């Protein structure tokens, strides 16, 4: 299963000779704690002692062959080592406090998938971990056959959702300067409408949305005939797509779109700068309202098939764990974007040691994502009812991403609204963001696995076939003050960045984008190509090329 893991000869030897007997034997000694750690408890009443010296100090190990316990003190006597030397072949033991395998011949901690599985099964059953959404999932845990079956079912649905949109990835081809990418056209500012222009530019170049409209999937004539509503944002966007991709380079005025949007969003309609993120959410809402009904939803997964959901919809997982018994209750919520708080933790700066990013005053997108998925202890005034304990206890909440969208929109919460001071302020702090983003550490399988100590174990729903690699294609920045700022979009087409400042389209270098104050960042999923050598850790397998055909937009005018 794991390719990066090379067991030592002693471990291989042991498994050849004894198979899984030893693992199954010690399984009954695995004791769990609410925080996901396990230890070996041979007996409930006795203090574990070394069979050589009867001492109980230092690290204790249980021999996998004869179950005798020996100690290893940091300074001096190592009875565990002695045990190995006196009993030939007794090289593998288990660290009592940590439930980890140790090879005394190699003098190193070693790892084995079967051992981890044995510990995990005990841990999961022991903790009565109930994943609410699953039915009989607990029975399938530990049986890879069952897990694979389940995985395949999910994949079929996912492929259906993903496959329809076709290729989303533009080949990174450098085009000659004389020929600019299609779809690059300025948008006139109609009077403080840069918030709208910036979002439109991003939508125009979101691959699934672009592909959908450019292949004529929204039939304006049909829509006009069949719909009772006078206003349809999809129709208006379709018009904008036609205009922007027509080859005409004079700036376009999205007046009809503004009018339609105002008619459909009464409470937001006014001649004043709007928040680009709010606008974006509102547009997605309006399009979904209209289309969701006609396109319908997938009966099995409940996924909506409208263009916005197929492009932006993901699934967030929320785990609430009781700190008393470890019982975890899980809920899933769909999302079309992720709003991130600034991670402003700054560690104490030591003069000589190498400094982490936050020490230098640089906040990174990764740290904001870390903050988003960090276990958060809920306040004592927020005690939640634990079904296992049947009482209210303090709990810990942790978010993770169960299903990544095709287009990942990350919203940086720069505008703080203080209810106390009845004022809003803008956080001007610079946020570093990568051009290539690996979402692996933030997906549910990684987060849940980490909670169980990173055991080698095939968790239900391990999305090993879906890519977690994303590439940026649009960045919306906000410059200036809260009330009187200006929005702009940087678009990345064929590895060249373009600045879209209302009517003005100019070429800029990477560094201009890196130094800008990002507000909304748009990443698109990169297809799996299975070429990431050495990155195949034990739990994250990359499958063979998904075989999606790529739709590359030719760079000719």
């Amino acid at each position, binding site marked *: 299963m794991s390719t*990066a*893991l090379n067991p030592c000869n002693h471990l291989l030897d042991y498994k050849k000779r004894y198979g899984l007997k030893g693992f199954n034997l010690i399984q009954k000694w695995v004791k769990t704690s609410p925080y996901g750690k396990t230890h070996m408890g041979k007996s409930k009443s006795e203090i574990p002692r070394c069979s050589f010296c009867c001492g109980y*100090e230092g690290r204790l190990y249980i021999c996998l062959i004869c179950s005798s316990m020996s100690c290893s003190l940091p300074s001096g006597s190592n009875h565990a080592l002695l045990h190995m030397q006196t009993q030939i072949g007794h090289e593998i033991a288990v*660290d009592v*406090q*940590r439930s*980890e395998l140790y090879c005394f011949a190699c003098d190193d*901690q070693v*790892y084995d998938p079967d051992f981890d599985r044995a510990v995990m099964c005990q841990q999961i059953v022991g903790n009565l971990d109930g994943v609410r959404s699953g039915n009989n999932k607990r029975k399938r845990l530990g049986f890879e056959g069952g897990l694979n079956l389940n995985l395949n079912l999910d994949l079929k649905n996912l492929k259906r959702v993903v496959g329809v949109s076709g290729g989303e990835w533009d080949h990174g081809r450098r085009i000659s300067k004389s020929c*600019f990418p299609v779809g*690059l056209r300025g948008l*006139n500012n*109609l*009077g*403080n*409408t840069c918030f709208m222009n910036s979002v439109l530019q991003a939508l125009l170049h979101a691959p699934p949305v672009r592909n959908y409209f450019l292949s004529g999937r929204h039939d304006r004539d049909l829509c006009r005939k069949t719909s009772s509503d006078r206003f349809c944002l999809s129709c208006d966007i379709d018009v904008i797509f036609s205009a922007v991709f027509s080859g005409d*380079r004079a*700036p376009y*005025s999205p*007046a009809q779109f*503004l*009018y339609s949007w*105002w008619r459909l969003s*009464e*409470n*937001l*309609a*006014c*001649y*004043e700068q709007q928040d680009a993120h*709010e606008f974006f959410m509102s547009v997605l809402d309006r399009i979904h309202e209209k289309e969701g009904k006609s396109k319908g939803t997938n009966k099995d997964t409940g996924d909506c098939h409208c263009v916005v959901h197929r492009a932006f919809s993901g699934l967030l997982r929320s785990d609430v764990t009781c700190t008393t018994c470890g019982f975890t209750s899980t809920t899933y919520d769909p999302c079309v974007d992720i709003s991130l708080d600034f991670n402003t933790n700054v560690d104490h700066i030591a003069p000589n040691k190498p400094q982490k990013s936050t020490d*230098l005053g*640089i906040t*990174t997108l*990764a740290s904001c994502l870390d903050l988003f998925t960090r276990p958060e202890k809920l306040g004592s005034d927020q005690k939640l009812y634990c079904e296992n304990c049947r009482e209210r206890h303090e709990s810990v909440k942790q978010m993770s991403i169960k299903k990544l969208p095709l287009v990942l929109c990350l919203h940086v919460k720069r505008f703080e609204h203080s209810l106390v001071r009845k004022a809003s302020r803008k956080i001007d702090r*610079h946020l570093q963001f*990568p*051009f290539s983003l*690996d979402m692996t*550490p933030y997906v549910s399988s*990684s987060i849940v696995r980490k909670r169980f100590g*990173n055991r080698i174990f095939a968790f239900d729903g391990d999305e090993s076939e879906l890519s977690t690699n994303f590439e940026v294609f649009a960045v919306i920045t906000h410059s200036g003050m809260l009330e009187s700022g200006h929005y702009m979009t940087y678009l990345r087409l064929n590895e060249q960045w*373009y600045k879209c*400042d*209302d*009517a*003005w*389209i*100019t070429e*800029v270098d*990477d*560094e*201009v984008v*890196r*130094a800008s104050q990002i507000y909304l960042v748009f990443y698109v999923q990169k297809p799996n190509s299975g070429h990431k050598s*050495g*990155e*195949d*850790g034990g*739990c994250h397998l990359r499958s063979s090329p998904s075989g999606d055909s790529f739709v590359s937009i030719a760079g000719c005018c």
Partner: protein
Amino acid sequence: MSAPDEIITSDHTQLASHFFGELLDSVIMDVASECHRIARLGLDRNLDDEEEELRLSAEARARIADPSNSEANSKYVVDIFGQTHPAVAAEIFDCMNCGRSIVAGRFAPHLEKCMGKGRKARVKATRSSTAAAAHNR
């Protein structure tokens, strides 16, 4: 004969020290074990890439902030297509609400009045205050 106080205190101190040492060793070992597992299983993040990104970001900010850098903050002369644009968009089209010819750059304020959503009549609008919108009409 009771032991002198100093000896008792020193025993206690030694004992406390000893326990603390054990606890500390255990915690250090915990962290080492976790990190060892992460490293061995290849679960650690690619620190080289991350450092590279940080370096690029810091360099970019330094270069942009440099006042002698003209590219970053210069006013636009021509766009990539060789066009220039006025501060207020000059294109003229008909308002779809009232039919009048409007200059693009002034379309939004016109539309607001045209649709009867004047700023004077408007109460501070939030997403939830649909009541305000009703009041406007």
